[in-house]
């Protein structure tokens, strides 16, 4: 256990724990944009910067990635930090002029309106969360792609289209998030995981009674064949089944449970 102070508050933490987690546990607020508790950190937005003083030397670090390894003193709201946060938000407002999330944050933090031209973009701040979400839970994960490749040999329904479903495309000032060649992706399953984690709502998902459209592609919904409850997209269900090595049964969890209970009951003659 290590004892550190954050804004004067003494906090206890484990070695290697991330500063942001320690701060949150102690009810100290640090703003974030590209951080998600369930996804690997990337440190791209830089909004969560704080000042760390260690053996007399002070440096600026991003709290979402900084592992606590010794006794340190942390300041989350010095003038220097607040000025940097304002600038970062001001820069992001120019990147994502259509994002109301960013606009609100700018207001809340008092970020200046920079007298420079806006990017003609939409809401995306290039935080990379969507890509990480897809890599982890969606069809973009490396493990899944390997599996799909194997399954493709066995006549899998989903052809494997090279890279991932979505990725950070190009580099530097022209970076964007997109599907390969900006075409609707072959392997996307329409799970919406990417859209769920997007902090700015850039990824549009439209849903009707019968289906969902995401990344320029339409997906049919699948319903439980017993009770008719919505299961997700058809591809999602098939994909989940394939990942666990079963045939898709198109049942909702409740009906599946019921069915296996029934199946088990039968041999015991309780029917």
């Amino acid at each position: 256990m290590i004892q550190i102070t954050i804004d004067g508050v003494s906090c206890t933490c484990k070695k290697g724990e991330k500063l942001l987690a320690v701060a949150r546990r102690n009810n100290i607020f640090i703003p974030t944009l590209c951080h998600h508790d369930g996804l690997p950190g990337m440190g791209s937005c830089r909004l969560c910067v704080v000042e760390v003083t260690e053996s007399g030397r002070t440096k600026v670090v991003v709290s979402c990635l900084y592992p606590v390894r010794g006794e340190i003193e942390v300041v989350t709201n010095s003038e220097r930090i607040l000025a940097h946060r304002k600038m970062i938000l001001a820069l992001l407002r120019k990147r994502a002029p259509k994002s109301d999330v960013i606009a609100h944050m700018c207001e809340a933090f008092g970020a200046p309106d920079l007298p420079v031209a806006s990017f003609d973009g939409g809401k995306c701040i290039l935080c990379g969360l969507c890509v990480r979400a897809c890599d982890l839970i969606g069809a973009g994960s490396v493990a899944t792609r390997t599996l799909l490749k194997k399954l493709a040999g066995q006549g899998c329904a989903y052809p494997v289209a090279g890279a991932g479903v979505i990725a950070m495309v190009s580099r530097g000032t022209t970076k964007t998030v997109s599907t390969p060649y900006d075409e609707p992706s072959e392997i996307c399953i329409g799970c919406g995981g990417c859209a769920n984690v997007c902090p700015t709502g850039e990824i549009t998902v439209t849903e009707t009674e019968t289906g969902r459209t995401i990344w320029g592609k339409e997906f049919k919904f699948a319903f439980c064949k017993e009770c008719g409850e919505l299961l997700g997209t058809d591809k999602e269900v098939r994909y989940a089944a394939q990942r666990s090595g079963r045939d898709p049964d198109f049942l909702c969890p409740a009906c599946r449970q019921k069915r296996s209970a029934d199946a088990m009951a039968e041999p015991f003659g309780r029917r």
Partner: protein
Amino acid sequence: MTRTILVCCGTGCRANGGMDVSLALTAAVDAAAADANVCCVTETGCSGLCELGPLVRIMPDDIMYYRVRPSDAHDIIQKTVLESEPIERLLFKDSSGNHVLHQADNPFYGHQKKIALRNVGIIDSRSIDEYIAHGGYSALARALEMTSDEIIREVEESGIRGRGGAGFPTGRKWRSAAVLESSPKYVICNGDEGDPGAFMDGSIMDGDPHSVLEGMMIGALAIGAEEGFLYIRDEYIQAVKSMKKAIRAAEKRGLLGESILGTNRKLYFSVVRGGGAFVCGESTALMSSIEGNVGEPRAKYIHSVEKGLWGCPTVINNVETWANIPVIINGGGKKFAEIGTKDSTGTKVFALVGKVKYTGLVEVPMGITLRKLIFEIGGGIPNNRKFKAVQTGGPSGGCIPASLLDIPVDFDTLKEYGTMMGSGGMIVMDDHSCMVEFARYYVNFLCGESCGKCTPCREGLRHMRSILTNICNGYGREGDIELLEMIGSTMIDCSLCALGSSAPNPVLTTIRYFREEYEAHIREHRCPAGVCKALTAFSVNHAVCKGCMACTAVCPTRAIVQLNGGFPIITKSCNGCGSCRDVCRFNAIEAVKGGRV
């Protein structure tokens, strides 16, 4: 007497026909074979003074010839080799017009001290035998008899700091990797020199590849690594070839492979070709690239000595640092530490380029003043122009003005003045350089090289570029300078990697030292240096003009015409290139306020 003719076939001289000279000399030797002394022609790596290449040096007489053509081969063999008679027309002429016979008497070479470049330009880089004959691999043999701790102690004592940019103490880096129990461990050589105008590391890999390998071998022994990678910039075809060949030769000699020199130590090296991105020179991006991922930097809170390549302890040093190691082991760390300054020991290789008479590759003791480097070694500014500034440390280095020419060149002093050692680029500018345009140029370059992962660098650079472009075009506004400073400060503190945190240097140093030049652009719509086309017009001062017509010859748009005995510039046709002003020997062409705005 056995004579060796060293023909420089480094990149610069090759471009000037060094290979042809070498062929011609070989033919001339053959032709004269009957009565010739034993004489061999050796092709070497860059000898330094590329500006005056191809260079030929006859040893052991140490007669150095400059700008040699294939047609000179016959004379060189007949006169110099056979009759020991120097050929005046091929010698260097110093500032007072005297012919200089020996290399060391040429002021370009006189002030240098070669450690990393000890063999470059002297040996045939393709031959492991020549390297061994010049004392090569003796440090490895010595290191094999030392303990890891003893090796590291020498390196620590030498005080050597990483030559790649950050200047981190090499010994300390090795020590932290050596104490870790885990295995495997790796050593990496960073040969991804991506700075425009820099060719230090390329020249070492090309001209003395075994010195790099030997350094890496010693490093690997010290930290307990059995595998090493040389990450070489893809454009360096020659260096890639030369390093691969060197690795094969070392394997054949039992210096690499199953058992190093018959001991039970294993070591394997391989070459990885770079992904062609400037940001891959950043160590974490480089490792990510070796692993086969996109070359993007990652947060460095856990150092790569602990978790580097594939999450294993990794020591990464650049080419020049590795090349220094054998000298440290052979001569001892103490002796090395006597060179240079207290906190920046040893020497540093620079690529001296830009508006300086003798451009080329130089190696000088740390702590030398910029003035000595530029005016004594580099021969000063050509065409009697005035020195204006020097950029050190590559594209994201800052620039130092004339008033600071006497500061010593070492890691900490350069940093104090807003720039950096970087990997050793040094670009000299004369008074025909606009500092705002200079900043715009490098910010634009870095815009294309930023990986775009983090906000400050990706967005900050983009806005810096647009603000600077506006200023250069005459659309600058009050407050622009302050805005640049604010963006710069956030980039320095908050960027993820060193590319972003050093990228504002060209902007912030020019504001620091040449603020009035920014103000002239913004407030008076005037480019004091006469470079920004939108703000500049050219006119001929007829009181000074001698009518030599040099300007009319270079004008690409034929905007200068002879009219009534004078040479007026037709404003409508002039595209503002400034060539006429550069070519005029009488300074008769003046840049004045004008242009589009």
